[in-house]
């Protein structure tokens, strides 16, 4: 950035600052996103609003441009790094908030035999931004890890990820075991990963296929909202 372009974020009004945070997030500028987040909070913004209007909205633009081939993985990872900067500030505030805005727990992990986790971590971050409490199981998870996490955390959603054609069928093993144990009526299952598609998801009995991180977060939120609607509260 040249000296001419360098300006004080404090000089921007709220609307301009939110747009600037979104721009900085798009450009992967973590220090600027962190600073912008702090300024909005210092102006009395609710942490949920900062998260939703600045960070999550910014990442949704990133998600769309990734889907459309305008941004590529390295750029998206820089954006994610910038969002992490903002989340670091917001997370403790959100955790202490008196208002429970949590959408519930979301267990997510890469399946057995697979060590790829970039996409899975992006989904986790976007879902956290949407208001889920994330239990990230990491990589190479056998079915037992998912079952233990379900017992321990009682999540509303379990998400499975795979990058390899050779590992994605293992998702079917997890689904089958959850079915056997009668867990599917309480726990919604989602799946995603580069080689997956809707046809594969349908074949293992998981209609909720998230084609990218932004869409996965939207689908997860839509699921919880629809549950709430059915239950007639929230």
């Amino acid at each position, binding site marked *: 950035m040249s000296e001419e372009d360098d300006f004080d974020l404090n000089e921007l009004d709220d609307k301009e600052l939110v747009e600037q945070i979104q721009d900085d997030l798009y450009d992967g500028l973590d220090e600027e996103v962190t600073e912008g987040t702090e300024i909005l909070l210092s102006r009395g913004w609710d942490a949920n609003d900062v998260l939703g209007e600045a960070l999550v909205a910014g990442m949704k633009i990133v998600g769309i441009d990734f889907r459309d081939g305008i941004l*590529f*993985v*390295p*750029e998206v*990872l*820089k954006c994610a*790094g910038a969002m992490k900067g903002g989340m670091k500030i917001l997370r403790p505030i959100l955790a202490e908030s008196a208002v429970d805005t949590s959408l519930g727990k979301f267990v997510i992990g890469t399946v057995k*035999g697979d*060590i*790829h*986790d*970039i996409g899975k971590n992006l989904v986790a971050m976007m879902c956290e931004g949407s208001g889920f409490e994330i239990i990230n199981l990491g*990589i*190479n998870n056998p079915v037992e890890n998912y079952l233990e996490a379900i017992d321990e955390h009682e999540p509303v959603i379990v998400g499975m990820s795979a*990058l*390899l*054609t*050779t590992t*994605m069928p293992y998702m079917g093993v997890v689904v089958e075991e959850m079915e056997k144990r009668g867990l599917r009526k309480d726990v919604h299952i989602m799946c995603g990963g*580069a*080689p*997956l*598609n809707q046809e*594969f998801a349908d074949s293992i009995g998981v209609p909720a296929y998230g084609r990218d991180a932004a869409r996965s977060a939207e689908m997860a939120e839509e699921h919880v909202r629809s549950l709430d609607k059915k239950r007639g509260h929230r």
Partner: protein
Amino acid sequence: MYAVWTKSVGTDKQNSEHFKKRLVLGCGALVYDLLRLIKQNPSLSDKVNLQCLPASWHNSPQLIAPGVEEYLSENAHLYEEVYIAYADCGTGGAIDRVIEKYNAKRIEGAHCYEFFAGTDVFEQLSEEELGTFYLTDYLVKNFHRIMIKGLGLDKHPELFDVYFEHYKKLVYLAQTENEQWQKDAEHYAKDFGFEYEYRLVGTGSLDSVFDEIDIKPLEIEG
């Protein structure tokens, strides 16, 4: 016989105006191996037209099936038979749907590492260390362009951990014996902080593409 780096699809007019041949449409990362196999059997050069799609799709497998389909939609009708020198390559079966549509054939396996090394060896390597990063001759030779620039590590070296956090070992599955490439691969492993292993595996079942072409005569021949 021609080998072309295809970035936008064209029609193979000059290769097919007078007679029809077999098309081998392959990944650009296999071009040296495919050319070498053809060179080893001069009779193939009259029978095969070799075309390659961008090797950079190695990092963007979602582009492979649409790219193959785009190429075949323009050119497949010019050939008697079409062979696809790709494995599944992370397309999740999408490449097989294209192949079925054009009545083509491909090399069996999940990816080039598997068909170069053979399924048994590849499974053994994966079992020994799941966090194994594989290189082939092409990837060693083009390491900077495909791996460093392709993953954006030249501009953002801080992303290294994001990409490679779970990797512990680099295995160079060599197609040919080349001392310089062995040194380079070992250097990359050291640079990345990975354990290193070298295996000369040759071209494995990539040869099967030409075995089939070689033994099966065409009815229409120029």
